[in-house]
């Protein structure tokens, strides 16, 4: 049972599925997980469908759910990776030097950016990717991640510092 100001659920899925996938992907970094998160967010929003008044209300809520699911996913993955690192004798660490020939390859740079993003905390990563890739305002990010604007600003700032440090070798080449 939906409200007059709310489109049919099927239309809402069609309208937001791709955007949710993109947001989730920016935070978790894998297509398979991003698709699962988009689906889970849409499913959870279905269970609350009667509480939404308008399409905008639905959109804000389902994106918030997806962001939080993605943040939780990154947290779990980090815990899992930490355990794995503890168990492994010789873990493979991110390369710190740049092969100039390969650095031009987009996928290689993308992979390095992805590894740099892994250095961020889950909430830093979410704040950073929503700011940089999705063009969200600090207020929007604060709403999506259920934080204050000041906390969000600090997270974005710390994330930028970490990313700059991690990508410094690539930045030299990009100038």
């Amino acid at each position: 049972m939906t409200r007059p100001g709310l489109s049919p659920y099927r239309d809402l899925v069609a309208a937001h599925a791709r955007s949710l996938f993109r947001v989730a992907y920016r935070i978790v970094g894998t297509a398979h997980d991003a698709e699962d998160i988009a689906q889970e967010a849409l499913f959870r929003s279905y269970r609350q469908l009667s509480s939404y008044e308008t399409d905008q209300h639905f959109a804000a809520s389902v994106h918030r759910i997806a962001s939080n699911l993605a943040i939780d996913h990154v947290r779990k993955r980090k815990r899992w990776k930490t355990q794995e690192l503890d168990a492994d004798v010789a873990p493979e660490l991110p390369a710190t030097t740049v092969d100039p020939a390969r650095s031009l390859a987009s996928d290689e740079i993308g992979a390095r950016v992805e590894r740099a993003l892994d250095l961020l905390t889950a909430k830093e990563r979410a704040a950073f990717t929503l700011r940089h890739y999705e063009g969200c305002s600090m207020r929007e990010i604060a709403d999506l991640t259920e934080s204050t604007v000041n906390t969000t600003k600090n997270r974005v700032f710390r994330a930028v510092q970490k990313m700059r440090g991690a990508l410094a070798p690539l930045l030299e080449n990009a100038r």
Partner: protein
Amino acid sequence: MNDTRDDDAFARVLDRLEVPEPGPEFETRMQARLADRIREYESRRGWRRWFGPAPLTAIASVAAVLLVGFLVGWRLGRESGAPEVRDRIIFVAVGDHLERSERLLFEIVNPPEDAVGSVPASRERVGALVTENRILRASLGDDAGRTSLSELLEDLETVLVEIANGPDEPSPADWARVKRRIEKRGLLLRLHVLDDPAPVLPKPTGLDRT
């Protein structure tokens, strides 16, 4: 100047992280996966709903039919001594109740292929049938005697209550048990035969007076 150049370089590097295209069928795939989960969710919610009150509309409609039956019977009985009109009205309600009960039990015994193990009915639906069944049994009362109709209503109520008091998320074993009980009591066949209860009704008491 250097800061701006740094920012540009930083942005260019970050933009190399592309989001893969999920494919043209993405929305369709998402709709299909969600449809499966929603179906399962609604089924489970149906079980949970059975514990609550049945919809007032369903109960009210049966009560209204019975009330009309009694009022008409009372009025006609005073005028012409023909309480069978009242009984006829009650039996219409009984026939409708038996038909709906038969549909529910049929769905449990013969679920559609894509819904094996899922719940075929909502809590409201089963709750309404239990309540109707009780009202009808009380209305027929001693008039019905030990007819096949009253026995059927008793057996039907036992099974309906068992379904209504089932677990929140019934397992295939739970369904198998309900199904066995329906089959053991031959409920589907008896419901089918008695969809029109008129032939097995006890003789209306009013006829004795004529």
